[in-house]
């Protein structure tokens, strides 16, 4: 069965530290890839997405992610985190077979210390 793995369930960083959240998926076909963020008490929001083209995609608030097809990975990065980045981050993979099924990872809770 298809799955999405996020390597860290909890990450604690100090402000200005660099961030990388891992995401791997198991599906051999064409995929669309997403990162969503849920700030405390708020809705899930789309952070960035990859559909085709440049495998390095840039999203809102200085986040970026790189799709490495050979590694089935779509890691999220930010060079310097801020306290306001404290949130839960979800990686999601949609199989681009004409269906609508999107599989989400378990999420990574990021806490940034001021």
């Amino acid at each position, binding site marked *: 069965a298809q799955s999405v793995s996020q390597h860290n369930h909890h990450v604690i960083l100090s402000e200005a530290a660099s961030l990388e959240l891992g995401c791997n998926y198991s599906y051999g076909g064409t995929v669309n890839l997403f990162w969503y963020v849920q700030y405390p008490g708020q*809705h899930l929001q789309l952070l960035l*997405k990859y559909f085709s083209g440049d495998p390095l995609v840039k999203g809102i608030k200085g986040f970026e992610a790189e799709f490495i097809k050979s590694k089935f990975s779509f890691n999220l990065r930010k060079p310097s985190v801020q306290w306001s980045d404290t949130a839960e981050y979800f990686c999601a993979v949609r199989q681009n077979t004409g269906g609508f099924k999107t599989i989400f990872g378990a999420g990574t809770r990021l806490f940034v210390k001021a």
Partner: protein
Amino acid sequence: SQTIHQWPATLVQPVGSPLSLECTVEGTSNPNLYWYRQAAGRGLQLLFYSVGIGQISSEVPQNLSASRPQDRQFILSSKKLLLSDSGFYLCAWSRETLRRGANYGYTFGSGTRLTVV
């Protein structure tokens, strides 16, 4: 602009009681609609999705059902709640299309925290 409304925000229900969670979308037509459950440490689990009125696909067999009586309304129901139905339920919509280059993600509602006691 498009908005999605989900209610109630919190709900405490006894075991065996019925459930009805409602989700409505404004500002778009013929959206694809989804119900997800978010369990701690387990991510978002797709429960149901709908591509049109009366069209429901179930991803996980369980105690819940979904209906889409109108184009922009999606309802999650149960006849008799179980303790294991407790969780955080999210409605979402997307403007998916099968054509190449489509690049829409999901927009999520604010969620309903259901506690079955």
